[in-house]
């Protein structure tokens, strides 16, 4: 087999284009840092607007009990309902607390007092978490007044069920721990699918594919030769993410590292197959790029469970999500990195990844071979 020259040619071409090389190797690191430091779903410092119609010591004390947590930030003191409308409309406040005129009177006379909370539901995730915080805040305050009421009667408060919440795998609930493994899928997809498809179609578009065809190389040698450099680059970026993830974000690999590399390799092969398949269909780099972005980048961002839980999607889409390898890869990567479990827990995903790689590489080589021998 004579693939050395094509590999060398491809590497030379990649090296000549300094920016592309830089992008392929260093941008993953930049993305990692961004994802690790800047991005999280933590809902804190919710901007709170208060309209206190009661305006007594009790009501102010109640508001204070809310503000004295890292979850809420007292942003606006409204003097009318209209003002509340405005601050919710323009996004000054995420939520508003309305305390009715009879609030303290009701509480002091042992009746039920009601407060109103208005949530800006446009970001449903923030709103869901915020409503949990509000409920917890109200509960704390209820407990406080109940304790006072019981104390007056000389009785202690016994909470019937004491909740002991506990988190496994990621005790500090760091989004980075969840996202960093997910980043592997995203970055490897870009390096493999987009780069290979562009690099093959580029030869078609510039007419240099004819030159390759007239060379004594066999078509499979051209295909393998074009693919090898991207496997190497993909493995380098993956290692970089691993090292930086451990150094910067303390995302340590709990499971077996050789197993992880093996999974990465199979995933990368699948990505290459997908890229080659696209290049056998597309005739211009623009088309190749769009098909790649829409078939690999966006699905691996949105349909893989990287950010959005697949369980929450409609059934049809859960079925569709099986068409791409990133979903299965992510299960493997998270299991190895976060849970440290062995191959027994995810052998099905392994089988699927291997099938995906075999299928895409098989179909695309047949198609490219036909095209090259024409």
């Amino acid at each position, binding site marked *: 087999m004579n693939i050395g020259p094509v590999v060398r040619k491809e590497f030379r071409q990649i090296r000549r284009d300094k920016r592309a090389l830089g992008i392929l190797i260093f941008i993953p690191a930049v993305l990692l840092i961004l994802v690790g430091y800047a991005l999280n779903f933590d809902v804190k410092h919710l901007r709170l607007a208060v309209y206190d119609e009661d305006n007594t010591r009790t009501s102010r004390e109640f508001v204070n009990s809310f503000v004295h947590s890292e979850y809420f930030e007292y942003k606006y003191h409204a003097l009318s309902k209209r003002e509340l409308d405005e601050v919710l409309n323009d996004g000054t406040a995420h939520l508003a607390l309305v305390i009715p005129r009879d609030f303290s009177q009701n509480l002091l006379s042992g009746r039920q007092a009601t407060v109103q909370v208005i949530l800006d539901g446009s970001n449903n995730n923030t709103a869901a978490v915020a409503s949990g915080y509000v409920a917890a805040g109200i509960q704390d305050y209820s407990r406080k007044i109940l304790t006072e009421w019981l104390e007056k009667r000389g009785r202690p408060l016994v909470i019937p069920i004491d909740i002991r919440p506990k988190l496994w795998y990621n005790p500090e609930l760091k989004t980075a721990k969840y996202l960093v493994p997910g980043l592997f899928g995203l970055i490897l997809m870009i390096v493999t699918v987009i780069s290979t498809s562009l690099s093959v179609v*580029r030869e078609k578009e510039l007419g240099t594919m004819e030159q390759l065809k007239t060379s004594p190389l066999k078509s499979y040698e051209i295909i393998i030769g074009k693919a090898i450099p991207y496997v190497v680059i993909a493995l380098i970026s993956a290692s970089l993410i691993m090292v930086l993830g451990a150094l910067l974000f303390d995302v340590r690999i709990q499971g077996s590292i050789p197993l992880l590399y093996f999974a990465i390799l199979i995933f990368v092969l699948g990505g290459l197959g997908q890229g080659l398949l696209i290049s056998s269909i597309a005739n211009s780099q623009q088309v190749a790029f769009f098909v790649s972005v829409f078939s690999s980048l966006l699905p691996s961002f949105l349909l893989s469970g990287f950010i959005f839980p697949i369980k929450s999607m409609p059934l049809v889409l859960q079925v569709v999500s099986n068409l791409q390898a990133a979903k299965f890869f992510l299960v493997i990567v998270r299991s190895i990195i976060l849970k440290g479990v062995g191959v027994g827990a995810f052998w099905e995903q392994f089988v699927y990844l291997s099938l995906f790689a075999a299928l895409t590489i098989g179909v695309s080589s047949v198609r490219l071979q036909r095209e090259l021998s024409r």
Partner: protein
Amino acid sequence: MKAIREMIVKEFLQIRRDKRMLPIVILAPIVQVILLGYAATVDVKEIPLVVSDMDNSRESRELIARFTNSGYFVVAAYVDRPKKIDEYLDGSVATMAVLIPENFGKNIGTGRGTQLQLIADGADANTANISLGYASQITAGYSQSILLNQLLKTSGGLAPPQLKVETRVWFNPDLRSANYMVPGVVAMILMIITTTFTSAGIVREKEIGTMEQLLVTPIKPHQLILGKLLPFVIIGFIDVILVLGVAVNLFGIPLKGSIPLLFGLAGLFILTTLGLGLFVSTISHTQQQAMMTAQFFIFFPMIFLSGFTFPIENMPKIIQAITYIIPLRYFLEIIRGLFLKGVGIETLWPQALALLVFGVTILSLSVLRFQKRLG
């Protein structure tokens, strides 16, 4: 004017000649908004539970029933020993475990109090956070009702003071993810299509050598640029109409604000994406370079730092400052405001102004660079 028109005709001929281009320009955005609209959801529901009920009393069953009746949880498995929950959590069959100790019901009944352990799979921090929130609310609600009953019995009918909260959700009362995400997807697709086509379209002429041919024609640089950009403005607007149609008709996202205003502000946004695309084309020599640059230096920052999925207020202060130069951030605020809140220009003018300033700046900068390179 004639020169520009002919340039536009040439561009459209080129788009038509590439048989796969037209479907991509028209169909891909529709398929994407449908897929992404359904996929981009962070709704947390039907959380699979593994239950270890060592008590099996009326109280423990009542608690489990409260979990499943809430609609947030489904029981994936019951185990007979606490140790056995491991395999369910390890294998991701369940993402939450409820451990009910022995004498749970008895200790509640005698007023002694008991403990309940909840274990959540923290690997997905967001889901874990929300699941624990729901579980605690359900348990606390149950605990509260037991307490009130006991107090009523022992205090001779005298009710303790209670605090009730009445929650109202504005703008998106059902807390549907789609209402928040689909307008964002519209903006994202618009950005990807217009930026890539401008950047790659111009570099393509350089790469295959036809730029020289264009330069020896009597066309002036600004006519060349306009002729190159206008087709993408047109395509961009066609895509806006298509994608908005899907958002409103298929997803039933209410468009509460003014449609002409939406189109006007989308025009301002396209100004910025075309400017960025043109800028990329002036610093790239090959299409591969142009597309990689667009992807990493424009799409990724835009997607991650615009508030599309990750709330800006959670980012570190420095990164928050950077988000002010992300045009998508402003357009997201605009399109979400128009869709969900139905606000008008009196609320959105700061965002519109930011887009205008950014668009004019980046576009004139790129045109200058482009002309210099051509000269």
